[in-house]
């Protein structure tokens, strides 16, 4: 007997009798018995389990959010208390994919509202109900560009998160997609001359990040003006920034994707976060992932269902637009609650404080001998020149409780000693001044 498994000895006997077998073993006659149990210790009571996992947790070091200056795709923001309380509702947590719509209206309406919020932030017409993370969402956007255009050449800015580009290569190489990278200028923005030179009739898509990995705000308007209409324009966006920055949809993006962790989700060692995926109605049949739509029930009452499922794997099988089935719906719930709490004004304040803190910090760091490497206008991250022994300093700072700007010279070797600084609304003036002092040492 176990507390998760309710069978009494007597019931087991009754059930075996009903089945018409004499023992549990008889139910497994077809199974080759290759082991006699696992070489795994016996189970433990919950208090002992708690102790074991807590002991592991204590071997990690969690940082006070105001002392974190590391972003690079995962961000610390204030998360209002209600977010976790509402999300913890077991009717969200322990439900599955809304296969029976009539008893899943909570899930379906929530996802419909989430889709609406993502459309609003990005300025796009359709959002799906989630992908695994920003990187896989980006990779899937390239696959979708090939489905739309029938072409296999992608021009991808080198200023897109390096891990996203790694994941994109993993996803796209099997079907023969060729990724060509576009370099950057002293602005820290995509090199337009190089982009123009590499654009040709074979090009399926151009992809840039907004703001990009260096924090620089790419000029989407100018970039789009260089790209012919039939080339798919993909923007990897940071959703908090979109409360302050013009929506990519306004500039003619075809697909806007990104990581939604910054919308109310704790860092979680990088997962779970959530990939968001948005596009235009004209492309929707080429889109991956689950879509929720509004409809009516028999009595004319408004309700919600999964729609356009013929794109998906359970119907289209090998011709599906993606193999995705399980997604990150629960994280979409967290995003939706967070955005409901913050509203347009709250999110804009968060975005502006992040922007302003980063600019305050940039000025202070420059005065302390850490000049910015790029001159382009940035959102809440920027790259500074550091000394050759900075990596050691970075580890030292961690001992003092500061999660400092991450060295990036291993992924961008051409930059030399450099670090990516991040600030959000959780950093205080005091914590930023302290960072400058500690970096100067």
């Amino acid at each position, binding site marked *: 007997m176990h507390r998760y498994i309710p069978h009494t000895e007597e019931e087991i006997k009754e059930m075996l009798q009903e089945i018409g077998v004499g023992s549990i073993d008889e139910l497994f006659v077809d199974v080759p018995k290759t082991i006699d149990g696992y070489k795994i210790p016996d189970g433990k009571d919950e208090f002992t389990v708690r102790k074991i996992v807590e002991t592991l947790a204590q071997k990690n070091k969690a940082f006070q959010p105001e002392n974190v200056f590391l972003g690079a795709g995962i961000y610390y923001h204030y998360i209002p208390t209600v977010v976790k309380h509402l999300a913890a509702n077991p009717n969200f947590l322990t439900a599955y994919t809304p296969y029976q719509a009539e008893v899943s209206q909570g899930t379906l309406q929530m996802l419909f509202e989430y889709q*609406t919020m993502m459309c609003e932030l990005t300025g796009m017409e359709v959002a799906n109900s989630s992908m695994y993370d920003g990187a896989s969402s980006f990779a899937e956007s390239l696959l979708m560009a090939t489905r739309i255009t029938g072409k296999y050449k992608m021009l991808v800015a080198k200023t897109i998160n390096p891990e996203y580009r790694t994941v994109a290569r993993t996803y796209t190489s099997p079907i023969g997609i060729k990724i060509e990278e576009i370099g950057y200028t002293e602005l820290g923005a995509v090199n337009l001359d190089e982009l123009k030179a590499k654009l040709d009739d074979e090009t399926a898509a151009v992809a840039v990040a907004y703001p990009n990995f260096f924090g620089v705000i790419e000029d989407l308007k100018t970039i789009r003006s260089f790209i012919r209409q039939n080339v798919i324009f993909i923007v990897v966006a940071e959703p908090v920034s979109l409360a302050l920055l013009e929506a990519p949809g306004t500039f003619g993006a075809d697909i806007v994707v990104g990581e939604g962790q910054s919308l109310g989700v704790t860092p979680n060692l990088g997962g779970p976060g959530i990939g968001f995926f948005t596009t235009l109605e004209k492309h929707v049949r080429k889109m991956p992932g689950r879509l929720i739509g509004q409809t009516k029930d028999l009595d004319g009452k408004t309700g919600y269902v999964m729609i356009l499922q013929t794109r998906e794997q359970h119907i289209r099988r090998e011709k599906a637009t993606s193999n995705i089935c399980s997604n990150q719906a629960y994280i979409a719930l967290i995003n939706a609650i967070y955005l409901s709490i913050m509203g347009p004004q709250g999110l804009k304040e968060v975005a502006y404080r992040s922007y302003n803190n980063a600019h305050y910090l940039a000025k202070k760091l420059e005065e302390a001998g850490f000049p910015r490497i790029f001159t382009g206008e940035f959102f809440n991250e920027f790259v500074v020149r550091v000394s050759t022994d900075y990596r050691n300093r970075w580890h030292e700072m*961690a001992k003092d409780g500061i999660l400092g700007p991450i060295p990036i010279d291993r992924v961008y070797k051409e930059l030399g000693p450099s670090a990516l600084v991040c600030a959000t609304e959780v950093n205080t003036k005091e914590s930023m001044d302290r960072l400058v002092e500690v970096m100067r040492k």
Partner: protein
Amino acid sequence: MTIFELSKPGRKGYELPTYDVPDSGCNIPEHLLRKKPPMLPEVSEVDVVRHYTNLALKNYSVDRGFYPLGSCTMKYNPKINEDMAILFTQLHPFQPRETIEGAVELMGHLKELLCEITGTDDMTLQPAAGAHGELTGLLIARAYFEDIGELGKRKKVIVPDSAHGTNPASAGMAGFEVIEIKSGPDGCVDLEELKKHLDETVAVIMLTNPNTLGLFEKDILTIAKMAHDVGALLYYDGANLNAIMGRTRPGDMGFDIVHLNLHKTFSTPHGMGGPGSGPIGVKAPLAQYLPVPVVRKSGEKYELDYNLPKSIGMVRTFYGNFLVLVKAYTYILTMGGKGLKHVSDMAVLNANYLRAKLSKTFKIAYDRICMHEFVIDNEEFAKKTGVKTLDIAKRLLDYGLHAPTIYFPLIVHEAMMIEPTETESKQTLDAFVEAMEKIAKEAQENPQLVKGAPYTTPVRRLDDVNATKYPVFRFKR
């Protein structure tokens, strides 16, 4: 009502701390500044609390009752798992390696436990879901054949017609041609049929064992030998692992690549569709192609190994859905080796008990001892009564139960696929049988009643035809 309709301009649900950083002024070029704010809700904290609490009331969940979705393993999700995951939420994936010692150790332990459970030699915890694991596994197979110079000739992946839709979809994404083979009259892989398609142009055979009919592929050792004789790899879809724990392991059966669904077998909550976790275990010769980083023991400690020159790369950022890993680890500690065997024993007992009871009223497809799930074939029932599987499913909702998986596997028409899991009691199963019997009676006596169901749910049957024909993707004012 949607949350957008609750909105009033100027109302708010947040408050940020006093701000003391000097304003440096905004230097963003005018044309890149947002002109029109996004239409997000403007509501109070109370509005938000009530909105989401009321939405939750419209959901059925495992915590509310029986959820016998076949192939989904909707078992109870222990509460302690959630508490343990919360201990790790504040870690940044890029923080210095020496500050995440415990997290890396946990991943190392979990990997070793899962390798023992699957009978594999190495593993990645990175894939975020089952289908993501499938793609990862097939990319590993691809890298292997490329490495040994056989990718040019090996273009095919064989899947049985009873396979999950993700199998062929993943194979397509991995650049393979999909060959679907018909199941035999006993519902298992037809060896003659397999022989016809199996040659040196085949890269991988993907199998679920037990298969989606809940039947154990009894010829699995022969199938493995046939695959390996032509140089192909055998892939294990782990959706149905909950049936065989403690008795056999995919690796022992001859599988080379094995995926797991931690959100099924290992009790992590399904969260309305995710996050899941789909680790991939492999036999030693394939370990060099795993995505990076791989967690490896080095002396007494665990290390994150990025130095795999032949790796397929990364399938997502960082270490996967890490919090899901914490929950699965907590579950394995709780159950222990013997407990996991008991899990499968009771899961299979429950399924067979339900099958035996329901076989008195319904036709069971391939009616013999099953594993953790079985399939009802309602084709004759529908012809006789006019009541289809969909109608029975909807009527079950009126009885306060979740419906089984319906119209899958595709090889059984009017299929109803039932997986009770081990966490359900005899009383619960009896109540389900009683409801099914009542519905069968209703179908005879008053078919319209069943065809009009459900009546007691937050909405009645929804028009999904027009929902797709004239799609409304988002709320608009």
